[in-house]
């Protein structure tokens, strides 16, 4: 029988079992790295550095995980904090860069394939909407869980998801059923 995340966390807490923590990393590395790649706009090297930092922080602070939320939700929160701190360190004022970056992009660019267009459209969203869409629509978190991860009110998450979805739909209108 496969151990649950809670069982593995319990082993780490009780015996400082690094093999159990390794299993947790193996299970969640793809989603955490995927989320960070979206947030860093597919800067793979930076995303992987932040993902490593996320898991190391998770290990050091695992006693702070009280099991009230899913382990993955707790990890997303650490990952998001790592991303924000890194952005601050690089003196990237997210809002300013967003506008600047969007100004450089041509939303009408036609890429071959829906997947490519979708990722392109996702990258065009402002950070707060992109983060909400990635967490809720792509990674399946509830609005409540996303609000905890992002440390913002539930209503703001709902608004960001709604606006992000609408923008994606508008950008991808050509792919819809005729």
């Amino acid at each position, binding site marked *: 029988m496969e151990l649950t995340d809670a069982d593995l966390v319990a082993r780490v807490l009780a015996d400082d079992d*690094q093999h159990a923590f*390794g299993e947790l*990393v193996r299970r969640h590395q793809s989603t955490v790295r*995927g989320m960070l790649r979206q947030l860093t706009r597919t800067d793979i090297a930076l995303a992987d550095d932040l993902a*490593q930092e996320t898991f*190391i922080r998770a290990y050091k602070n695992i006693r702070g995980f009280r*099991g009230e939320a899913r382990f993955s939700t707790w990890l997303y929160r650490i990952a998001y904090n790592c991303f924000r701190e890194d952005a601050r360190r690089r003196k990237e004022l997210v809002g300013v860069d967003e506008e600047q970056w969007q100004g450089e992009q041509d939303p009408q660019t036609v890429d071959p394939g*829906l997947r490519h267009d979708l990722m392109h459209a996702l990258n065009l969203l402002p950070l707060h909407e992109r983060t909400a869409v990635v967490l809720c629509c792509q990674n399946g978190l509830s609005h409540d869980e996303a609000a905890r991860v992002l440390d913002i009110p539930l209503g703001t998450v709902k608004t960001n998801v709604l606006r992000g979805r609408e923008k994606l739909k508008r950008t991808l209108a050509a792919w819809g059923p005729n």
Partner: protein
Amino acid sequence: MIDDETLDRQLREAAPYIDDDGFTASVMARLPAARREPRWLRAMILMGMTLLGSGVVYLLSGGGRFVREGVIQLSDFPVWLLLIFAFGCGLVVGAFAVILAIRKTPEVRDLARLRF
């Protein structure tokens, strides 16, 4: 226009599984060293300290004479008073056990948050 369900499905499919490709190994290599003392050693230290403390108390109290005297005094109490005392002790211990169980068990703790 694409509907919400299709959009969410496309988003999930657009995020493929990322192969580990040595990622876990590099994280494990950067983890701080595990605590050295094993669990059994901590248990042995605790048990040793408990036994030592008990021995000291036993010797200092004149071979546990106070326990014998306490039991003799207790036997002089009326039966109904002893029953009330035992019932009260049971209630206090039971209440602590329930509180601890709720705090330690996420499933039970979550029940308290359910909205009916």
